[in-house]
């Protein structure tokens, strides 16, 4: 087993990987950018190294800097987390050339998964159903238009080198095709350095389900599906397992298909095969060649530490579990807590977190990258924490999630918790009737009026200031010098709360 592991990531995932490394007796070496000098993930590591400026291209996305850090820190392996360099075959190859073990799939399998057309072709070759579409880059608008009329509108343009929902563009009518084609090519070029597009039939009201697979050199294990239909701009917001729509027989077909598909491309380590579920049938969507954001829900229902298995596979120690031994219990749901304001069209909300309190209790897990006082920088993705609950069944998991959302307090930046609060009261969601455009179709964010309990206190203070005539007396109260002592304010608080004592006799300072 490795003795020293470099974790080439930041935020909650870096912390989560370090936790498992520590349990395995492996020293974790973290990296950070200038913007992350005081970031929480530094505290989770045994050692950390500064690798560059705040801009991702100069730090977390910079292959040279990360390899240099690995050399300086004398590590044996690199865990890439998700995002950043995790699905970059050049990085995986360079790790190998430098004598480092990359904790992830072999570069060839990763390159094939990342090329959407190649992945589609190879899955189809294995008898995996694929959505109707083309298996080559579109050469012109005319070609796109011919194919679109053959398979029928709506269609979806996808970037060959795409990922993370970027570069996808839905076209409902022939008249929209030409401009959508040019726009999507521009987006693909800007984001992936490759303008190539292909297209597929767009499936209305489809569900997104995916199967987590672990493969070592001998064996493979496919896990119960995760449903990730609650999305915004093709990005997942809520994931759950098992899917409320998948029957036992469909489940075993999904798992078989995913395992077969990954084996066929020589895949090793953790990977996920995504499918669209439509009218009771499933079609291949894409392969995610990395540990996924939503992996904790699988861990909750199976008790398997996926990062531990990843590290064992990479070290050549093999899987600790087999398909036959795998059991699952109950239902798990994850909410992605992003620093975005759902009332203002999910506008990014970076800044300083001035107050922070996580929900606790049985069946509640929070994978977080922040604490009170943390800075959420504007340079990276908006995920600050993942709220995960586990319960005996879906209904109880929903109740547990509602309670946990209300108990999750993040002040100083806006988060999408108010959106989650509304979603978990939405009847279609509660019934398990999910589809990938439900957030927009049901106007869940558009109907939000309140940001929740903390901001209601803000509103109450504002109302009291105006009603009592205080606000009209002009800006600012005397600062710093408190007009009341802590003792007297505690006494008043107790009186307000209905207590009879000025200071509770049991209180200790």
């Amino acid at each position: 087993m490795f003795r020293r592991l470099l974790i080439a990531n930041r935020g909650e995932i870096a912390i989560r990987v370090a936790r498992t490394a520590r349990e395995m007796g492996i020293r974790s070496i973290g990296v950070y950018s200038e913007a992350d000098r005081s970031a929480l993930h530094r505290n989770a590591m045994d050692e950390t190294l500064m690798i560059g400026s705040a801009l991702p291209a100069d730090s977390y996305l910079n292959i040279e800097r990360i390899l240099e850090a690995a050399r300086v820190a004398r590590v044996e392996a690199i865990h890439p987390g998700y995002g950043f360099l995790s699905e970059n075959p050049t990085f995986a190859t360079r790790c190998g050339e430098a004598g480092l073990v990359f904790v992830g799939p072999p570069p060839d399998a990763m390159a094939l998964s990342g090329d959407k057309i190649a992945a589609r072709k190879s899955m189809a070759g294995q008898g995996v159903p694929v959505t109707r579409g083309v298996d080559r880059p579109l050469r012109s608008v005319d070609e796109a238009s011919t194919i679109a009329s053959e398979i029928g509108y709506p269609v979806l343009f996808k970037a060959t080198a795409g990922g993370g929902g970027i570069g996808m563009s839905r076209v409902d009518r022939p008249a929209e095709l030409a401009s959508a084609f040019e726009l999507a090519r521009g987006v693909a070029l800007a984001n992936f350095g490759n303008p190539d597009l292909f297209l597929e039939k767009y499936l209305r009201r489809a569900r997104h389900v995916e199967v987590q697979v672990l493969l070592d050199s001998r064996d493979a294990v496919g896990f119960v599906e995760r449903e990730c239909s609650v999305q915004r701009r093709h990005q997942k917001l809520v994931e759950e397992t098992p899917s409320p729509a998948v029957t036992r027989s469909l489940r075993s077909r999904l798992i078989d298909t995913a395992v077969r598909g990954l084996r066929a491309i020589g895949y090793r380590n953790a990977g996920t095969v995504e499918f669209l579920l439509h009218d009771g049938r499933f079609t291949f969507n894409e392969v995610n060649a990395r540990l996924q954001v939503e992996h904790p829900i699988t861990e909750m229902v199976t008790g398997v530490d996926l990062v531990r298995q990843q590290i064992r596979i990479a070290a050549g120690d093999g899987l600790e579990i087999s398909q036959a031994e795998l059991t699952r219990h109950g239902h798990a749901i994850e909410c992605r807590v992003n620093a975005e304001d759902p009332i203002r069209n999910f506008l990014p909300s970076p800044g300083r977190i001035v107050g922070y309190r996580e929900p606790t209790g049985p069946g509640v897990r929070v994978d977080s990258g922040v604490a009170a006082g943390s800075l959420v920088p504007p340079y990276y993705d908006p995920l600050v924490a993942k709220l995960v609950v586990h319960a005996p069944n879906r209904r109880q998991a929903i109740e547990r999630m509602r309670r946990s959302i209300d108990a999750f307090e993040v002040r100083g930046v806006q988060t999408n918790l108010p959106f989650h609060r509304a979603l978990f009261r939405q009847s279609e969601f509660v019934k398990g009737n999910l589809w990938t455009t439900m957030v927009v179709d049901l106007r869940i964010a558009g109907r939000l009026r309140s940001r929740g309990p903390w901001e209601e206190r803000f509103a109450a203070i504002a109302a009291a200031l105006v009603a009592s005539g205080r606000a009209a007396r002009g800006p600012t109260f005397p600062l710093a010098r408190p007009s009341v002592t802590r003792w007297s304010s505690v006494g008043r608080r107790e009186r307000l709360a209905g207590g009879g004592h000025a200071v509770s006799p049991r209180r200790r300072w």
Partner: protein
Amino acid sequence: MRFRLDVDGEQRNIEVEPFAGGFVIRIEGASYRARTRLAKDSVDVRIGAKTLRLQLEGNEAILDDGVHHVRLVELSTEGTDVLESHPAGPGAVVDVRSSMPGRVVRVAVAPGSLVERGETLVVLEAMKMQNEIPAPGDGVVRQVAVREGETVTADRVVASIELRRPSAS
């Protein structure tokens, strides 16, 4: 009445208007209806189904969950935010502010540029998302206050526009 309120180090732009015997409180896009009742040494505020009892004492507000440090930062009885309300007359020079903290990835205009309402002045990027800041009305750019590559805070002046005719908001 509009003011900027600081509670425990967190600041918000707040607008309070009388409404049906109570108030509507708008906080950066969210809105709350509140009714208040003044008692001898406390104020009861009802928001939705909840009633919060609070006491104002110097720069502190004492609520059921603890003592909060409260500060009124700015105060105005007139609207100041051109983007959101109150049209300004022709010839008025209005400041355009950033909607979010982020990096300036593009400055689309220069002093002297003629702009139309809705035209992009500056593009900000934060957390892998781009946000375009539009002109609030037809006019001439008088000043551009940011440079490409610069990092700005929320609510910072990015440009000033001299309006040619009232914006239609």
